[in-house]
């Protein structure tokens, strides 16, 4: 113990360089843990995008493509599903509920999604949380709209406001359904999922604004006003996709097979959990690269410590010779130097951990509001403890290098100091 207290005093004497080493270790450790946390939480939030849904059904294409457009509102459907096919499966005796989805229009780059009131009842995200209203209520008329939280925030919309939907999903659209404005009746609470960026309307609303459209264009001379459209049959002819909830999970594969083998139309049913996993694996490369970079940053921090310790060793040969003359064994000298790196890496790791929690506390509200990513402030996970342990152990092992050199010096120098 006497030696460790000597190591501490010696470090304190060189507090400027020692604190620089500490800063570099602490920063790299907090970066490593921060990236790890961000990685785990974004993965969780990703997996939380949709829950409670057993199958997603769309026109036959790829599983990831279907997931992307139906759940993440990214990209477009290759084809639609006929209303009849939807009807047939929604009445299947194994199916508990379905949510139809009709996409294709947008409002100021936010996607507009046609659905029905079942959406608010059955749609689940995260740990089976249902959608709640921040303001207002669900739609019950053709020209009503419910906004996701972020839509309302960014565009500064309130309940009662009229909005005009643009045709197509592009950022700038030149054709607007400006003859049929929608009234905002509700704004959903934030979910941290793509729901926040969606404008919800009834399927009938989508149908109504396209009543006088043929082949993607409004036909001149056949204009139908908003009121006239309400008189027409607004049952949609086709939808983009639908979500299925089953009465029993056991039936999942059976229903999936039925959908995939449906003869009248080429359909595809996917298990959202499996498709999410596949999608995440695609991003795994970037994720690993990021982790790799932070591991290298930690390595650079530790090598910095090694450099400083090796550089200081020559100046300390005198000190070690004095200690030897007073009865310090070569092992003590090894411990004196290695103990220093032990203290540095332990304190560095601790400060890094504090830094992580400090920055989590500071950035948590911002990250949640800007990116819809909730970063929980919890104790380090097993994996994080393992990482911390690895950094500490590496620090200790690296300290053996100058420690061993000092040990060799002290054997060679003895008490005679040649400086």
């Amino acid at each position, binding site marked *: 113990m*006497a030696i460790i207290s*000597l190591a501490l*005093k*010696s470090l*304190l*004497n*060189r507090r400027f360089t020692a604190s620089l080493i500490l800063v570099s270790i602490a920063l790299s450790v907090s970066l490593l843990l921060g990236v790890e946390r961000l990685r785990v939480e974004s993965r969780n939030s990703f997996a939380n995008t949709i829950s409670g849904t057993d199958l997603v059904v769309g026109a036959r294409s790829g599983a990831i493509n279907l997931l992307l457009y139906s759940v993440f509102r990214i990209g477009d459907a290759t084809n639609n599903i006929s209303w009849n096919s939807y009807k047939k499966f929604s009445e299947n005796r194994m199916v508990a509920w379905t949510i139809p989805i009709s996409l294709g229009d947008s409002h100021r780059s936010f996607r507009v999604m046609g659905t029905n009131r079942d959406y608010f009842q059955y749609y689940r995200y995260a740990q089976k949380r249902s959608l709640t209203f921040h303001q207002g209520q669900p739609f019950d008329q053709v020209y009503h709209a419910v906004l996701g939280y972020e839509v309302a925030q960014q565009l500064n919309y309130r309940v009662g406001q009229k909005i005009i939907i643009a045709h197509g999903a592009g950022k700038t659209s030149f054709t607007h359904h400006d003859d049929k404005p929608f009234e905002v009746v509700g704004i959903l609470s934030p979910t941290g999922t793509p729901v926040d960026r969606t404008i919800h309307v009834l399927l009938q609303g989508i149908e109504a604004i396209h009543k006088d459209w043929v082949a993607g264009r409004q036909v001149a001379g056949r204009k139908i006003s908003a009121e006239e459209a309400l008189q027409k049959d607004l049952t949609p002819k086709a939808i983009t996709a639908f979500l299925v909830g089953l009465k029993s999970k056991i039936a999942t594969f059976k229903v999936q097979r039925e959908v995939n083998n449906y003869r009248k139309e080429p359909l595809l049913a996917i298990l959202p959990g499996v498709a999410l996993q596949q999608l995440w694996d695609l991003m795994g490369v970037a994720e690993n690269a990021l982790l790799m970079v932070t591991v290298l940053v930690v390595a650079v921090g530790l090598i910095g410590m090694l450099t400083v310790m090796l550089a200081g060793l020559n100046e300390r040969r*005198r*000190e070690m010779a*004095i*200690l*030897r*003359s*007073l*009865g*310090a*064994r*070569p*092992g*003590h000298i090894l411990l004196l130097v290695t103990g220093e790196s032990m203290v540095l890496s332990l304190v560095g790791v601790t400060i890094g951990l504090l830094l992580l929690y400090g920055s989590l506390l500071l950035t948590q509200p911002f990250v949640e509001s800007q990116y819809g990513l909730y970063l929980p402030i919890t104790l380090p996970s097993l994996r994080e403890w393992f990482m911390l342990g690895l950094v500490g152990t590496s620090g200790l092992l690296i300290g053996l290098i100058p420690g061993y050199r000092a040990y060799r010096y002290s054997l060679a120098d*003895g*008490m*005679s*100091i040649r400086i």
Partner: protein
Amino acid sequence: MPQIPAIQLRDLHFEWRSDLPEVLHIPKFEVTRGERIFIRGASGSGKSTLLSLLAGVNLPTRGEVKVLGETINRLSGSRRDHFRSDHIGFIFQLFNLIPYLSVLENVTLPCRFSQKRKQKATRSGKSLIDEATRLLAHLDMADDTLIHRPVTELSVGQQQRVATARALIGAPEIVIADEPTSALDSDMRQAFIRLLFQECEETSSTLLFVSHDRQLESLFGRHIALDEINRPAQGDH
């Protein structure tokens, strides 16, 4: 009971490497307990090597090194380290002190490595700090402001006195001083040696004083030149 000599060398040989010439060959050399001996030698004459052999830091190629009756070259490395810290106090030429320790911490440092010296230092029921302060006071370092100053801010003479207190704490049987006065001016030299004698007397320590400075040898009871006892220096090997 016959007194065991403080130091006995028998047919001591030392060479750094087998292909290099022998540095030391001392057929016989003895120092009795309580003696104050001055060993004169020019730099490069093997003085430091001799001291490292006496301290057990290096081992002789052949021969025997007996300190206080113990043949230290037959002891294991860690036993030799223990033996050194228990029985020998050192004073070096310059930069003797550990820069990051306080004056008192420097003085009590040997007691961290030797239980024996710690016990001796606190035998009369005093604390280690009291004993260190007493020694410093004897060496004209009683001033409180001096004691609490960082050792790097002390003058060379003051540093040497702190080093002396460190060598003497816990009353080691042997005190080895390696050119301790070379950084001091001649007035301080005399004063320093007188203080050193006085303290060694009090603890009845044997003093081995190594220097190249002939002016000092008259102060010692016994003085020899290293070349007189060392054969390679005499050129007949």
